[in-house]
């Protein structure tokens, strides 16, 4: 089997070696190649009035990143993994996209970066922009649990959100490729209040039955692969109910398909992906409809 690659993007603010180490379980799903990426923002070395380009500062920042990456790489190499590293200067977004393309990675892992006011307004847009411009799934990795402990096996109990779109179908297929890492999949569909158009109890019960059947079909696909699965229907506002379900069912991660709409559209529509990226306390695995499996 060809080694799958993950691109681990770190600014050394949000993701450290323990985050990387907690993803080593993914080797059971064929992820034997890690590529590290650190982007030195232009603002750190350029655009300083009267000072020009700060070459010495660039060298210092590069070497600081290099020392960290060498240490991380040594640990992974000794486990028999393949490792590569990029330390580049520029804007993070285009660098993430170009590195993902150059290395043909199967998964991009990013943290949630600290943001300014403007960026906060568009919270999560960097991740959505990656999803719009590549067909590679993105794991927004919040690896510290609210308890302060490291989420050691994020793929063990993923909560799979199903909205019956082509993107959520792709999310099912993508998640199936993690066989060997998954212990139990929790498939959830949220029925929005708007869907209760008719006051007829009969029609509402039909709606419940139809969605439950679809969820059971999803579960049986996992069970055929030897992965435990359970299905749950929730009612109400999608993001709040997903968070509630994740908490009640002790999920370790949330998985969602994404439409690939522009970040602005996603934000205006109040998409689940935007909210997961911005607000969820759990890691979010976002799978674009365009992913090639």
């Amino acid at each position, binding site marked *: 089997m060809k080694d799958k690659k993950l691109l681990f993007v770190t600014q050394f603010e949000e993701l450290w070696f323990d985050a990387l180490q907690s993803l080593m379980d993914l080797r059971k799903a064929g992820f034997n190649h890690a590529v590290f990426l650190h982007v030195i923002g232009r603002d750190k070395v350029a655009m300083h009035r009267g000072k020009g380009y700060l070459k010495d500062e660039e060298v210092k920042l590069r070497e600081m990143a*290099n020392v960290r*990456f*060498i240490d991380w790489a040594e640990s992974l*190499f000794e486990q028999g993994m*393949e490792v*590569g*590293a*990029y330390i580049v200067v520029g804007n993070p977004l285009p660098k993430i996209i170009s590195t993902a393309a*150059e*290395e043909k990675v199967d998964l991009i892992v990013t943290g949630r970066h600290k943001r300014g006011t403007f960026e906060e307004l568009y919270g999560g847009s960097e991740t959505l922009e990656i999803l719009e411009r590549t067909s590679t799934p993105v794991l927004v990795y919040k690896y510290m649990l609210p308890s302060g402990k490291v989420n050691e096996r994020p793929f063990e109990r993923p909560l799979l959100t199903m909205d019956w779109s082509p993107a959520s179908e792709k999310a099912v297929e993508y998640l199936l490729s993690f066989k060997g890492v998954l212990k139990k999949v929790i498939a959830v569909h949220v029925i929005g209040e708007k869907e209760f158009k008719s006051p007829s109890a009969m029609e509402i019960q039909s709606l419940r039955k139809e969605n439950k059947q679809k969820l059971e079909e999803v579960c049986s696909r996992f069970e055929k692969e030897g992965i435990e699965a359970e299905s749950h229907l929730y009612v109400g506002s999608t993001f709040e109910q997903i968070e509630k379900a994740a908490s009640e069912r002790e999920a370790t991660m949330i998985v969602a398909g994404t439409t690939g709409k522009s970040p602005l559209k996603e934000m205006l529509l109040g998409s689940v992906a935007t909210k997961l990226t911005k607000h969820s306390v759990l890691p979010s695995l976002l799978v674009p409809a365009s992913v090639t499996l």
Partner: protein
Amino acid sequence: MSRRVLTVDDDPDITMFVKTVLEENGYTPLVARNGEAGLSMARDESPDLIILDVLMPKQSGIRMYRELKSDESLKNIPVIILSGIAKRTFLRSQEALTEFGDQPIPEPDVYMEKPVEPLELAETVKGLIG
């Protein structure tokens, strides 16, 4: 004809340094930026010596070294590993790959940890290929 030495490293400062040392000592330098390109160049150019980094994009020196030593036409080319990665890590990683089912491979001819002095590098190259 001067002896040809292939340097595989993604750091332009290092390749420039090695290139200069090689040229000053009468060798012809060849350069590749990662293991994938290095392996391809080794096959095309059959260099007399390879100086190989470990941590690189696309394909690491650990995998490239393994491929070199598993290829009948390339396995006799001497290799200097020149890297920031510790020798112990390199050897352990090769052991780990062997445990996963690959064939055992010999240790590199010389292992040098960065940084290296120009004279030390020149003498090491001379010691291997004259």
